[in-house]
């Protein structure tokens, strides 16, 4: 209504208006960049700069007394790799095992919360997140009490002769669980489980319940429905969850330090000891970069294979 009357009653549009509009438009165009600025600054200061610094450190040589100079000594990378490949391999194996275990434990739970929990949903979610209210370190230390040699868990496992079998398999040693590979993998699984459950839950929860009904109408059995409908739709959650578990688990050193023995040390432990104790900064930096490159390569292949681009 008013639009039709406006041209007659309103004075002719003042000439400066288009300029103002252009200015406003330009300002509008800049808004995203202004909004990006804090994040970019953050990344530059706390991610890019340290990364460059570490990259530089990895090709330096020297000592604390004489200082470290960039000598493009790439040999450090090769030396670090040949010296510490067992720890690298172990990190990948432990992290991958823990990721698979997290998926096996986390998927049913996330499924339950998303589709079956009903009014308990919020409570169960809180239970999943609750461990975050205590420190990572304390939670890991708690496992030392739970898995203590004379504690109830190990006693039960021993009386059922389960530890005899696991010892044969080489994942425990004698009549104990602590200071063995099993303890480290269990610790990793426990500590990173929420990182698996949360993305799984958020992608499962988005699935339209009517799709399940439709699958049923088309004579799909429950398992077929899961295989053909639910699981493919939850793939973004699976990919995100496995990445969020695998990446930090591969670099973790707390679990190996507290729950493992000398034969369970992971690459994170080596980096820590090279950096802080041995004061061989170039080797520590080179190890970090090798780990980063290895993870990046594995993740790229994995994402390509799993064929999903949007990670929740």
């Amino acid at each position, binding site marked *: 209504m008013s639009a039709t009357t406006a041209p007659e009653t309103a004075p002719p549009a003042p000439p400066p208006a288009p300029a103002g509009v252009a200015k406003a438009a330009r300002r509008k165009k800049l808004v995203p960049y202004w909004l990006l600025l804090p994040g970019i600054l953050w990344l530059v200061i706390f991610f890019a700069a340290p990364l460059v*610094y570490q990259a*530089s450190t990895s090709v330096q040589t020297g000592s604390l007394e004489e200082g470290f100079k*960039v000598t493009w000594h790439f040999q450090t990378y090769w030396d670090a790799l040949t010296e510490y490949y067992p720890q690298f391999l172990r990190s990948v194996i432990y992290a991958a095992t823990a990721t698979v275990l997290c998926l096996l434990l986390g998927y049913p739970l996330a499924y339950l919360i998303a589709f079956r929990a009903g009014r308990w949903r919020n409570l169960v979610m809180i239970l999943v997140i609750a461990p975050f209210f205590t420190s990572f370190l304390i939670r890991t230390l708690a496992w030392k009490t739970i898995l203590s040699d004379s504690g109830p868990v190990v006693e039960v496992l021993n009386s059922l002769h389960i530890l005899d079998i696991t010892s044969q398999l080489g994942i425990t*040693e004698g009549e104990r669980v602590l200071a063995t590979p099993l303890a480290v993998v269990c610790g990793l699984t426990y500590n990173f489980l929420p990182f698996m459950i949360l993305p799984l839950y958020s992608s499962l929860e988005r699935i339209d319940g009517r799709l399940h009904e439709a699958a049923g109408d088309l004579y799909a059995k429950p398992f077929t429905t899961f295989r053909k409908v639910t699981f493919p739709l939850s793939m973004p959650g699976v990919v995100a969850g496995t990445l969020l578990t695998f990446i930090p688990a591969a670099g973790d050193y707390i679990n190996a330090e507290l729950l493992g023995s000398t034969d369970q040390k992971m690459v994170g432990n*080596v980096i820590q000891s090279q950096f802080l104790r041995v*004061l061989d900064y170039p080797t520590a930096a080179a190890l970090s970069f090798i780990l980063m490159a290895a993870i990046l390569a594995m993740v790229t292949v994995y994402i390509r294979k799993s064929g999903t681009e949007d990670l929740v």
Partner: protein
Amino acid sequence: MEPTHEPESLSPPQIAAMRRSMTSGRMALSRRNLLRAGGAGAFAIGGLGALSGCGIPPAGRTEAQGASDDHSAEEKQVNFSNWTEYMDETDDKRRPTLDEFERRTGIKVKYTEDINDNVEFFGKIKPQLAAGQETGRDLICVTDWLAGRMIRLGWMQQLDASNLPHAYTNLAEGFRNPDWDPGRAHSYPWTGIPAVIAYNKKATGGRKVTSISQLLDDPKLKGRVGMLTEMRDTVGLTLLDMGKRPETVTTDEYEAAIARIQKAADRGQIRRFTGNDYTGDLTKGDLAACVAWAGDLIQLQADNPEIEFTIPDAGYMTATDNLLIPSKARHKKNAERLIDYYYEPKVAAKIAAYINYVCPVDGVRAELAKIDKDLANNPLILPDDEMAAKSHAFRLLSSKEETAFEDKFAKLTGA
């Protein structure tokens, strides 16, 4: 786009598919890909420049100019960084000896328990010290080998003896002349830390553990032996057990000791190399026997009567935690007055009674007896002559040796 070679054996649909992928598929030169490639290129070129620009300058001898700037007179305060559990404390979180110092001198002490680990603390303050900047701390407390390293690097200030009358007179004989700080020019010990053998009687089945040899060889202890990640304590005790002196250790002797421990580790004798967290393992019995710090043991024994300790016949290691003033500290004189205050026997006795480590102050026995007779007679706090004779210290290592020794030890611990 340049025309790309297309093999002739492809079927027309395949060729069509390939063309499509060139323009709109994965191989397409989209804006995103271009940006990505450009970004990577820019990063690579800029990166090279940035990389060679970095570097860590050699350790500066900042001692001379570090000493000049003292604001003690106009700023009545001192910033003291110490380990946790290293200061007497009442149940309502007051620190009586520090309060007394503040009352007496009017100097406000900002006491921070921010040292948990020597290597981590060094990592934390190294950048400032290396750059010749102030650390914000006037007084720090670190273990002797780290103190030695930082003095060697020229990062610690020389102390002014005229501000330290009590410390100068009361410092116990055995602590006066460490090889890493001759004549105590830069440091005064806060405590002595003996490393001895501890065991849990229940876990060993009543067996006594009396030597490092037994720790490394006794099959009854297999998988339940702990050693410390503190290289000088673990290797030092092993050297003593092998009849060598840690005061004069050579590279060959050091390697022999490492090989000795490695053999036991390969056999599965050693469960873990630990820091302070051995105490929990020992109490639970997960560790049957281990190398342990004496000050912890008095506390552990009070909580668990099964815990016993042995001073090995071959001797034991004593390290020290030392008070030092970093270069550029703003309140040097105040810090010196604080050091001196803790060398008054009455004050030192209060600290010894609370933290239970070896007290490096002469004339403390009578004062300590007034607080607790048992503590005054405990050789772990005030060693008698017989015990003092068995005490050893690891020799000062050069920077090169330190890196090489630590590297070998790190390999032993699996990292």
